[in-house]
């Protein structure tokens, strides 16, 4: 092969032979890429060139929101409103959950799914409710797939887990492109139009709170929540991360998160840590609260406590 004779022959190689190799190569490559034909229509230059959330001017944001509304209309055939709901000043959100009264009905998980336009197919939920063995807080003996006729089972207790909105979030540290960050009111958000889908944040989270869109999310038209915001519950593209945002499109406007509103036992307490009169402050001051996996040092803003209802 390294014979110098064949080097001299290069120039004499027939044109036809070279041309046929080139044609075979090009047509083979084109054929190999043919599955992309289905999605090439989805490609949108404007969307592709869109800047990071922090770089968008007010006018640019207006255009982006209008484009997202049009995209949603095209995909799901329904009108939605996409707003950019900003954090309020002097606010830091926190959550507390009373494990003494949680019955494990998973109403929070389903309400969350609906409120946040979370993909139904493939299914995905932000809140995972664990059925725990009494006598400890051992996640490794927790049952994730419990399906009894009625809850609660007498020998178990239940622990819902969702994003803990950590003060030292390992997911934010992990992201190579700053597609996820902590907002001034403490909520960790994702720019779905900036995320590259490497899933390093998903590996980094000690609370298994992040989800990836392995397919284009499927939502039944009639179940779409039309009240959406850019950083929370607007419809997501394929191939990006998403997560619980404490329903920022609700909570930044004075409402409770959907999971709290639906809870039948009043196990959930939510509010502004900086407001001395808030219920969350009362709970943190008067109940014996703990955080899950304190040893990983991510400093969650999600607290648990046990108090049997009187």
């Amino acid at each position, binding site marked *: 092969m*390294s014979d110098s004779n064949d080097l001299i022959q290069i120039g004499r190689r027939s044109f036809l032979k070279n041309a046929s190799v080139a044609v075979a190569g090009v047509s083979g490559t084109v054929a190999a890429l043919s599955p*992309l034909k289905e999605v090439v229509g989805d490609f949108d230059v404007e969307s592709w060139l869109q800047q990071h959330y922090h770089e968008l001017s007010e006018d640019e944001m207006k255009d982006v929101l209008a484009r997202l509304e049009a995209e949603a209309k095209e995909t799901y055939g329904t009108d939605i409103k996409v707003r950019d709901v900003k954090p309020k000043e002097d606010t830091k959100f926190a959550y507390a959950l009373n494990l003494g009264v949680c019955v494990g009905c998973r109403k929070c998980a389903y309400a969350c799914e609906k409120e946040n336009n979370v993909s139904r197919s493939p299914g995905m939920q932000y809140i995972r409710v664990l059925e725990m063995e009494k006598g400890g807080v051992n996640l490794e003996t927790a049952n994730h797939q419990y399906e009894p006729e009625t809850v609660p089972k007498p020998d178990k207790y239940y622990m819902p887990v969702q994003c803990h909105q950590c003060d030292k979030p*390992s997911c934010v540290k992990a992201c190579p492109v700053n597609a996820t960050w902590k907002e001034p009111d403490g909520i960790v958000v994702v720019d779905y139009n900036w995320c590259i889908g490497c899933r390093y944040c998903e590996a980094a989270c*000690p609370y298994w709170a992040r989800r990836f869109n392995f397919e284009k999310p499927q939502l039944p038209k009639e179940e779409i929540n039309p009240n959406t915001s850019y950083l929370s519950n607007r419809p997501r593209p394929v191939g990006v991360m998403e997560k619980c945002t404490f329903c920022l499109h609700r909570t930044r406007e004075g409402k409770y998160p959907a999971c709290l509103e639906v809870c039948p036992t009043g196990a959930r307490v939510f509010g502004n840590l900086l407001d001395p009169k808030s219920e969350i402050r009362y709970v943190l001051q008067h109940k014996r609260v703990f955080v899950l996996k304190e040893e990983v040092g991510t400093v969650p803003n999600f607290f648990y406590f046990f108090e049997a209802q009187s």
Partner: protein
Amino acid sequence: MKDYFAFLGRAFKLSFVGDWRYYAWMSFLTIVALIGLNAWATQLAQGLSTTGMTDQVSWGAYIANFTYFVGIAAAAVMLVIPAYLYKTEPLKKVVIFGELLAVAVIIVCLAFVTVDLGRPDRFWHMIPLIGKFNWPISMLSWDVVALAGYLLLNMHIAGYLIYKLYLGEEPNPRWYKPFVFTSIAWAISIHTVTAFLYVGLGGRSFWHSAIIAPRFLASAFAAGPSLIILTFQIIRYFTKLKVADEALLLLRRIIAVAMVINLFLLFSELFAEFYPHTYHVAAAEYLWFGLNGANKLVLWIWLAVFMNVAATVIFVSKRSHSLPWLNAACVLAIVGIWIEKGMGLIVPGFVPTPLGEVVEYAPTFNETLVCLGILALGALLYTIMIRVAIPVVLGGLRREV
């Protein structure tokens, strides 16, 4: 400049010239690479649901292969150190083929990361200044810098030396020696940074171990030179580049030491996991013995241990002076370490999940095709590189005056 383009033109033409075996080999690789490209296109159209990955096990065969091949690329340094620092003659003659291998393998690594991305179309978000590059906070951004730097270093060193030979000029040490010494440190760094990707995740106890970076290096310096030994024998069988037995046997000594260290570090890891037997042992238990009936990796990891031990025994014994034994040991080491460091390191990091759920992972057919396509691409690139480099080194290809 004109000379340079003429060289590139001739190199391009040369890569289409060879005997029937060359055509058969290149056609085979092209076809496998295109099948892989087709599988990737399917994945892009449908999403990563075409893979076996889930929210529970969110990295799989792609990242496992990526990790393994970063080690193979780093191992080129095991030719570079003896050749440049100790001026070992038999290795000096062939060191350039190790550097070219590093180039091809780094491209393989970058391809494995690219196919793992949910949105490869947004790659520009990672480009500093144009996008947003979370450096120095994110370990992944460090890895991008490390890999890109190593690729450029090796491309420069190998490219410069080959081009100078082609011109018939003496290479100027100022234009390659500093880069060679940088590349030595850089090689160590690429695998260290890759280890730190995992070690830096405090919530994953299986990876949160200080021994992972040294283990990575030890296993890389065993598997990489093993691959080089086999590759050099294939090269000398099919081409006129006669790599000396001495060069192979020198590498054998390096591998023997690296294998022993690798096994020792593995043993240390096992002790730290199983003797105290804290709750954090669950992932290791899943890997080595199975957990709650989930045991897909158990057979594999024991097979890997068997292969690594067998390879070590051969490498340290006198038998490995004979090529058939040496080759058998190399194959055992390459495959054993591929299992141990690929799937055996990545998947248990996710099993059980941080919330204690046990979900297993196995690559799908489509995912496997993508992996095979990338390996074929790497082999294709390396074949083209040596197709050009060998006649230059042997003096058959020179500037036309």
